[in-house]
């Protein structure tokens, strides 16, 4: 009701003066009530646009990952009631972590007040407001947000995504053309097709395994599992979710990229209903100086997951107590479809406890690395713990298997996983290695459980037997490795490699006769198997069967002249025979091949010993007590009696 309207009607038939006074009083009153109405009235330009521009537009803009823009009054007005609904249910914005956990970089959740404000606005008819109140749109930062990259790689050829009704996961190996060790401060991932690429899990593979699997599939990429060799580099999480660009780490925290590495990118794609082309690009940013500090990744979780069909409430727990002071930089939860509640806590030495991760309604499609705005101090003795809950009932709409079946730990989508990854910075560089080794022991033990779990479901998968056998060897449990290599031999019908692996494990387990038999089986199938000749030679040497050992070691070299281990074996064989001259010669040949550590040091040590035992060329030999090497005192035939110390 406007002031003019109120003043113009119902005037009494009184004198003009009174009328005018009453009219102006009414005008004044009218003006006052209109002003307060405007103050109470929520408008788009003044009240709603700031909220939408800050929390929605990063994704909801032209060319962004969201399916429609929310950059103008018309665009928002058209969906006003839907916006009320999705903000009330917290479906949007899609920040799944409970607010009381704290703030993470790049997240823009709405407060309760903001959600209520949007509701009030819509209830009032969604008025636009004055144009002058409209704030500017956030700048559209296309291009490289982190600056010009030092290297850009892309998925070539691009991948064609078919119009499937449901999500697709696919792994791509992208070569990284660096020619020397390079230190990387970070990467920027451009999905190429932001509507369709929902998130990316990114790893580094130095072994070429991912590349082989990619090449084996005729189309770009392959469907399947991340190879074990594809890892997070040196304590850094790589990955991408929409709107999230991980800031570059300071140069002293950069990670080392070796030549011959591939970027292994697992894309989660949501088909659109039409054929789509997907060609992501990745920019890499380098540091000229090597890192001074390296983060450590801790994985908590359970690989023994085994959920009965229909179980609506299956719980896993794990914990680890920090043996040194550290800071928490980032957290990444991981599970598949059936997980419901994700919980991570830190309990400090003084008994205080803090929730560091809490998601109530886990959605596999919203995977994210949560980087803390401020690192969290974790003093020595802090206990980090996780607890995940799963629903394997038919009532769980997200259950990928209907009717529900028994679910094991595993990497396929029908399996389940439950990991909570922590990125830590151990304060003291020297203790970092100790912490890293401690964590590795814990993770290897858990990985073994994971393989044993997978073998429950797939007892005839010989690759699983091989993989877990190798883990058992690294964990110092050769007898268990033997058990699994025997299974692998039985399943593969006994390939040369299978027998070789078994022989090696038997050697480490101390069962030399059986080891010899296994290596002979390997050689029967593959007579030119240099490594089998080498290992057989060494076992025979240990059994005192020198002549046979030498024969096999020489065969090993014949089939592979670059086999440093074989030369080393020969060196030891000749030493056993008392021919130290030849022993040193063989050790030299081994060292010429530039073997890696720790083999090179072992060879050098032995070589020094054999040199000492060699017959001297002339003169007396005296041995120095400090073992620094023999000295030769020349006979008095020469005028000086200089002591010559032969160089090593």
């Amino acid at each position, binding site marked *: 009701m406007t002031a003019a309207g109120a003043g113009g009607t119902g005037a009494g038939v009184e004198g003009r003066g009174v009328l005018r006074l009453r009219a102006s009083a009414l005008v004044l009153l009218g003006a006052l009530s209109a002003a307060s109405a405007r103050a109470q009235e929520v408008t788009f330009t003044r009240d709603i646009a700031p909220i939408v521009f800050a929390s929605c537009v990063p994704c909801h803009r032209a060319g962004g990952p969201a399916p429609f823009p929310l950059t103008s009054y018309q665009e928002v007005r*058209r*969906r*006003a009631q839907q916006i009320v609904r999705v903000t009330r*249910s917290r479906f949007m914005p899609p920040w799944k972590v409970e607010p009381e956990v704290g703030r993470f970089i790049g997240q823009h959740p709405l407060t309760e007040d903001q959600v209520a404000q949007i509701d009030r606005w819509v209830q009032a008819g969604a008025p636009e407001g004055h144009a002058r109140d409209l704030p500017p749109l956030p700048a559209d930062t296309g291009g490289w947000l982190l600056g010009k990259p030092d290297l850009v790689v892309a998925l070539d050829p691009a991948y064609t995504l078919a119009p499937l*009704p449901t999500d697709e996961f696919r792994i791509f190996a992208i070569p990284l053309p660096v020619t020397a060790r390079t230190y990387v401060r970070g990467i920027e991932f451009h999905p190429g097709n932001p509507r369709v690429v929902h998130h990316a899990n990114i790893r580094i593979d130095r072994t070429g395994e991912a590349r082989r699997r990619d090449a084996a599939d005729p189309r770009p990429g392959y469907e399947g599992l991340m190879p074990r060799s594809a890892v997070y580099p040196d304590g850094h999480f790589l990955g991408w979710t929409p709107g999230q660009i991980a800031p570059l780490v300071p140069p002293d925290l950069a990670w080392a990229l070796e030549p011959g590495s591939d970027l292994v990118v697992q894309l989660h794609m949501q088909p659109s209903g039409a054929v789509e082309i997907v060609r992501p690009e990745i920019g890499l940013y380098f540091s000229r100086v090597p890192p001074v500090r390296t983060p450590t990744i801790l994985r908590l979780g359970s690989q023994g997951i085994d959920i009965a069909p229909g179980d609506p409430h299956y719980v896993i727990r794990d914990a680890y107590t920090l043996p040194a002071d550290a800071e928490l930089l980032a957290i990444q939860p991981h599970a598949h479809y059936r997980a419901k509640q994700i919980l991570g806590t830190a309990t400090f030495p003084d008994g205080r406890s803090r929730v560091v991760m809490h998601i109530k309604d886990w959605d596999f499609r919203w995977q994210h690395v949560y980087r803390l705005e401020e690192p969290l101090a974790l003093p020595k003795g802090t206990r980090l713990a996780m607890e995940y809950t799963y629903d394997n009932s038919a009532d769980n*709409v*997200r259950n990928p298997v209907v009717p529900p079946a028994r679910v094991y730990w595993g990497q396929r989508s029908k399996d389940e996983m439950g990991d909570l990854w922590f990125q830590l910075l151990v304060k003291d560089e020297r203790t970092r290695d100790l912490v890293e080794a401690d964590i590795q022991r814990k993770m290897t033990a858990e990985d073994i459980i994971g393989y044993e779990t997978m073998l429950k479901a797939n007892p005839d998968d010989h690759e699983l037997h091989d993989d877990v056998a190798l883990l058992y060897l690294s964990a110092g449990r050769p007898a268990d490795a033997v058990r699994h290599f025997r299974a692998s031999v039985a399943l593969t019908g006994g390939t040369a490699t299978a027998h070789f692996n078994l022989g090696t494990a038997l050697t480490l387990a101390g069962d030399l006769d059986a080891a010899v038999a296994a290596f002979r089986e390997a050689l029967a199938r593959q007579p030119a198997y240099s490594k089998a000749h080498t290992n057989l030679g060494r076992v025979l040497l240990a059994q005192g069967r020198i002549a046979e050992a030498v024969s096999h070691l020489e065969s090993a070299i014949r089939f592979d002249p670059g086999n440093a281990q074989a030369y080393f074996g020969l060196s030891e064989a000749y030493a056993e025979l008392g021919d130290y001259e030849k022993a040193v010669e063989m050790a030299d040949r081994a060292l010429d091949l530039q073997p890696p550590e720790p083999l090179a040091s072992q060879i050098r040590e032995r070589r020094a010993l054999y040199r000492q035992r060699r017959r001297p060329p002339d003169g007396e030999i005296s041995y120095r007590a400090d073992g620094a090497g023999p000295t030769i005192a020349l006979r008095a035939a020469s005028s000086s009696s200089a002591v010559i110390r032969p160089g090593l």
Partner: protein
Amino acid sequence: MVRLAVAALGVALAAQAPITPRHVLGLDGRATNPLAPAPGIAATVLIFTTTDCPIANRYAPEIRRLADVYESRGVRFALVFPVRGDTSEIIRAHLQKFGYALTAVRDTSQELVRLTGAEVTPEAVLTDARGRLVYRGRIDDRYVDFGLDRREPTSRDLERAIQDLLAGRPVAIPRTQAVGCMLADLVK
């Protein structure tokens, strides 16, 4: 009492009246009635959709499948675009991108939305040969809510309704709740 009974009768009669839109446009800009009785047409399926609703778009292969199966049995399919911003040009590009070979009409005054009661996109309406509404609701139950969808639908409700109608049976489930982008703000 009598008034109530008469009112109820009125509602029932309204449900039985053929839907006859007068303001729906074809892509050529001319008025058209996608529900008009025609020889050989046993039923009409309207799919309310927009060009930028991700749920509606993900249903494109399923909509095409239904058309492939049932068009030869006298079921006519039409995509209905109630958002004014979806111009003929935009719609044509959209049809090509999603491989649709279906009739598309523009319901720019949301007349069909009001006449059928459609609430979201995608939403399906099935009418008989005379244009009387016999089913309104979801295409299938894949979507339970935003961000909550099944791997496979367990109930293909539109298809079952079509089958009921073609077999001469009353449609067993004439009404289901569709999930998708809300139309409420378009219809004042």
